[in-house]
């Protein structure tokens, strides 16, 4: 089925998906997804469970590679460069595209080491001082510095759920990614922690291209500038969040947004 695109000019497309499809074994999860995602903004993927929104998200940093039976087709470009080509090493790609998961997953290391992990494995810092600086900046950007500055050597798991999620975001930021993918980053958090993460996402958008998958329409409405609505493996509608929420064009989007379901 064809997608309804609102006529918004996206001049600074960071990520471009064209005719992307994913199959798991013989099951088709999504097909024919085409999207142009702007830089320095938050794009939300919404839709009912099993609509394929997470699957599409995971094509952008090739996390589907880690699932044996997943097959990705079509073209995914970041800054115009095809990432599914053989010449692109997923290890290098993932340094450019950070990812934050549903459940906060800090490594069982100190807060410092959690953030330093990426820069270390990729060799981004040439010395202790530089590493310190990266850690501090990342934690500051993630709005966590004030809360943890005096206990960087404590394990990341000792933090509260919301703090852990911000730590994970700091960890992603530390390798200076260009794109940050978030897969329901607040679904394991309470409303207070959720609000803080949303606040953080709103701040981060100044510097990154953020793509967020969310279960909660309200959250998509709050944090995103662009919204893509998925349904049964199709991209149904894509446009500015405000337009999607006040004046959706496709009947399925309309029904979903207004709470009229199958």
């Amino acid at each position, binding site marked *: 089925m064809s997608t309804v695109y609102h006529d918004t000019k996206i001049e600074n497309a960071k990520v471009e998906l064209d005719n992307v499809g994913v199959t798991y074994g013989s099951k088709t999860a999504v097909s024919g997804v085409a999207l142009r995602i702007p830089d320095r903004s938050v794009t939300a993927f919404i839709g009912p469970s099993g609509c394929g929104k997470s699957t599409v998200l995971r094509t952008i*940093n090739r*996390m589907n590679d*880690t699932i*044996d039976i997943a097959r990705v087709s079509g073209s995914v470009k970041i800054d115009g460069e095809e990432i599914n080509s053989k010449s692109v090493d*997923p*290890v*290098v*790609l*993932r*340094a450019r595209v*950070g*990812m934050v*998961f*549903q*459940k906060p*997953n*800090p*490594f*069982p*290391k100190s807060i410092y080491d959690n953030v330093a*992990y*990426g820069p270390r*494995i*990729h060799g981004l810092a040439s010395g202790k001082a530089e590493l310190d600086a990266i850690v501090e900046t990342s934690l500051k950007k993630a709005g966590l510095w004030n809360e943890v500055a005096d206990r960087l050597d404590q394990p990341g*798991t000792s933090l509260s759920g919301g703090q852990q999620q911000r730590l*994970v975001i700091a*960890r*992603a930021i530390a*390798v200076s990614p260009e794109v940050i993918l978030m897969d329901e980053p607040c679904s394991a958090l309470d409303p207070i922690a959720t609000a803080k993460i949303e606040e953080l996402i709103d701040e981060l958008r100044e510097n990154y291209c953020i793509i967020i998958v969310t279960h909660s329409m309200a959250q998509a409405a709050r944090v995103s500038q662009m919204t893509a609505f998925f349904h049964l493996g199709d991209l149904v509608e894509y446009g500015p969040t405000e337009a999607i929420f006040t004046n959706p064009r496709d009947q399925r989007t309309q029904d979903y947004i207004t709470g009229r379901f199958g």
Partner: protein
Amino acid sequence: MSVSAITGLALLVLIAAAFYAGRARAVAVSGDKPVRLHSLPNYHGYFLAAWTAIPALAVVVIATIVERQLGMSAWTSAALTAVLSVLAGLAGLSLARRRINTGFRARNHVERLIDVVLLASSVIAILTTVGIVASLLFESLRFFEAIDWRIDRFLFGLHWSPQIAIRADQVGQSGAFGAVPLFAGTAMITLIAMIVAAPVGLFSAIYLSEYAGPTTRRIVKPLLEILAGIPTVVYGFFALLTIGPAIRGAAEWVGDLTGIVALQNAVTQSALSAGLVMGVMIIPFVSSLSDDVINAVPQSLRDGSYAMGATKSETVREVILPAALPGIVGALLLAVSRAVGETMIVVMAAGQGANLTGNPFESVTTITVQIVMLLTGDQEFDSPKTLSAFALGLVLFAFTLVLNVIALRVVQKYREKYD
């Protein structure tokens, strides 16, 4: 036999009858409207059955104990038991039956009884430990008494030759019970076993859980489990038959080539062959415990690491192993405890000479070997020779207990982290 069989049968019939009587009674008092009962009719049945069975069985138990002391003829006592137990059962039944009415909480009574049975079962585990400690301690004390309380000589003595009979006037010379060679032998074999098992077990666990495809895993894992299921006596035979001679042959060959006497004097029953085979035995133990521990590391951590652009080995080394480390340490400690307590392999493959040596190609002996040596065959329960086995058992138990406690603590702490 036949009388008791008939008694048993009679009691079974009685108990079954009690159950149905209870159920029928309950339905009757409810005026055929079981909804009005507090408990379902079946519970009234169970209640009556229990109140029939308990007095009857109590009579049987008391009769069995009394019978021994009175020394009645077998037939009389059996018959008497039969009559008394049936009577007791009937008495219990009629008493209990009176209590049944609509408001009677039969279920609660039955459930309390079940609670008691369950609690009694779990106490057996404690009794086992008490039994172990008591028996070991009691016999060990007798041993220490026999060696004139020179426990230091037992623990730190360098010479072990319990075969020398100790006459009453020679008590002072019980230096023959110096257990250090045994400890050293145990330690050496355990060390060899761990050198084999720790890396092999750990790496196979890592490979299987992180690298191997589902097909490989499906084939290799059961194969490794076979290794775990093989009885130790088989490993012992394997060591004796294959590994021992092979090591000896290889050692002699190398020894002849290099002129190292230690190698030339290699024997079939050597510390190395026992240790090596024990190591093989422990591989699946280490690998399955490590596998559990590694699999308990949440997938989200792996995803997190891969999403940062880490390779598999980086993820394993930097994220999974640190996360699993306490669990792995616990697993290794448990493996050590197992190696220390392993008996058959060393009995068959390590020899019996109480040598105090650092040469793995020589034959050494271990605590467990000596216990077996001392306690198989005819035993004199007052000879220090026999009793010394219990002292060794006590040392073995104490050592493994300490290891286990530490290992379990470590593992438990680890588990709490991801629960």
